[in-house]
């Protein structure tokens, strides 16, 4: 019953009322639903913590310094190539998605007329629902086969970009839409053009929201596997800076393949990669969300 008592006004009031009536049965019947829902929440959080614990307890001890300076070799070795590959793929994808995603978001919120706007928003939602493995196969057909790039940084980066795109478009669009009308009108009243107001008033105001979404999308891209299997390939060597014709190793591949090898070293490497990835994603997510909170509070205060 403690969860219920914690819960604040309405529930607590009803609980106390029935206590005074002295009927335990009534109290139980009235609050059983709340107990069940609180238990559901607690078990959900417990599962999350169990997964974190499982990965970190096995991964952190395996995370030795030499992992960062040696490359994978067959079933063991280090993670240097995979870490660099993941970073290169994600940076490539972020650079592309910043261009296309920000552009589309600005167009949607600032330049589009109603019908094309509704259409592109619908397409963005459709893209958000496309399974990542389908995006991977598309990249395989178009980039790896037809364009002839083979497994490559550009192929994997573009596949990741497509995964990130709907989040960034939506984030930019919503953040710019949320800019208070009075702020923009103030700019116009000072004689600024439409574009000047967009660049000097709306964009800075919306930037925290936009960057939050970009960071969350980066977190998603860091953990993707399926779109890369078909486009980035894998290599035991350090990734080269060639955009095409050179496969790129990445961390999630290590987790996926090394855990099914029958060797303890392979398992240790898979868990080390998973722990590293989880830490990167948690940092990205927590940073994004706390930053958003702070910025939002500051903006509310300023107004």
């Amino acid at each position, binding site marked *: 019953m403690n969860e219920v008592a914690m819960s604040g006004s309405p529930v607590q009031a009803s609980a106390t009322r029935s206590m005074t009536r002295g009927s335990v049965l009534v109290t139980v019947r009235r609050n059983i639903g709340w107990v069940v829902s609180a238990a559901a*929440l607690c078990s959900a959080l417990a599962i*999350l913590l169990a997964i974190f614990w499982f990965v970190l307890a096995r991964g952190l001890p395996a995370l030795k310094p030499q992992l960062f300076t040696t490359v994978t070799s067959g079933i063991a070795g280090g993670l240097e190539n995979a870490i660099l590959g993941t970073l290169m793929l994600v940076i490539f994808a972020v650079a592309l998605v910043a261009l296309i995603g920000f552009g589309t978001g600005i167009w949607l919120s600032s330049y589009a007329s109603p019908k094309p706007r509704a259409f592109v928003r619908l397409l963005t939602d459709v893209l958000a629902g496309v399974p990542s493995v389908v995006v991977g196969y598309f990249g395989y057909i178009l980039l790896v086969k037809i364009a002839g790039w083979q497994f490559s940084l550009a192929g994997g980066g573009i596949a990741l970009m497509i995964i990130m795109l709907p989040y960034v478009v939506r984030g930019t669009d919503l953040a710019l839409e949320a800019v208070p009308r009075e702020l923009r009108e103030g700019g116009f009243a000072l004689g600024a053009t439409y574009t000047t107001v967009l660049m000097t008033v709306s964009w800075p105001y919306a930037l925290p929201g936009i960057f939050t979404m970009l960071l969350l999308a980066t977190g998603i891209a860091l953990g993707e596997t399926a779109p890369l299997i*078909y486009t980035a390939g894998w290599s035991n060597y350090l990734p080269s800076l060639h955009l095409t014709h050179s496969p790129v190793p990445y961390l999630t591949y290590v987790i996926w393949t090394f855990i099914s090898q029958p060797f303890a070293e392979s398992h240790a490497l898979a868990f080390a990669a998973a722990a590293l990835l989880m830490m990167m994603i948690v940092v990205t*997510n927590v940073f994004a969300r706390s930053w958003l909170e702070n910025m939002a509070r500051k903006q509310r205060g300023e107004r």
Partner: protein
Amino acid sequence: MAIVALSGASQRRSRVAPLDIVLRYGTTATAATTAAIVFLVAAFLVVYAYPALAFNGFGILTHLEWNLGNQYGTGVERHGGFSGAPGASFGAIVFIVGTVVSSAFAMAIATPLAILVAIAMHYQVPRRLKTPVNTLVELMAGVPSVVYGLWGIGVLVPWIANSLGPFFAAHVPMLSFIGSGAASGNGLLATAFILAVMIFPIMAATMRDVLSTFPKIVFEGAIGLGATPWQAVTTMVLPAIRTQMFAAAMLALGRAVGETMAVLMVCGSALNQLPQSVFAPINTIAAVIVSQLDSALTDPTGMAERSLAELALILFAITLSVNLIARLIMRGGDRVKRTV
């Protein structure tokens, strides 16, 4: 002034700056790229899968067997004007059944849990704990698929193989139809569990958003009429938002259907057999696209690769319809909310 400025169009006429032109046409080009990507994905899947569509016909929906045919023999088998290896048969019924059954199981587990968790998050979590709890649940949605798969291999599958399977075999003989035991732990039950764990955070977060935007007055009104808080939630609030809750569940279903890596790691990768029990190995469309790539590349006729593209196309069509239905419902729900 405000009207002139806000419309933008008349501004452009009166004062055209170079930056304005660059931004206007530059952003239009990027938006066209975004739109084009969606069409390109669909178009290239169709074009690339076309030989497989012609070769397999409706057989892909009716045949049980996924067989690349004889890779070492001479000659080819021709269907619909395209050739595959002799004896090749590309039937997806095992993968379609696996996808549908595992997603249905997962939804049956995750939906009630997500509703309860959303209620707890909205009504029960104290104000100062709301942000950390919300962050944790959203973080759970951000855990990579392959890490869930790792947990599945390390914890869930051994638990099913060593505890749950033997328990059912020993103590619940009347339920023998669900399986005499779990040989490896990989299979339908593991897939359904892992999918449920993966989709329920996103479902709970969406449902919490629905709850928090719903007018508080309904809850308070019910309390005012003498309902207990739980009655107010279950008899007034939930029925009023049921369409949006359903849409949230549909969006999560879209995720479950397209989920690849975690499923691939725990499903048992069944080929050519339908599951006979909840412990039996299965396969899903998404998982088979990845797990069959290596063998498909060995097919000199290329028909296996084309058939995988056809599977990707089928998966695209399924997720597209699920998501569009969810969107339509959500929009209908918005209309309902406006009239409240």
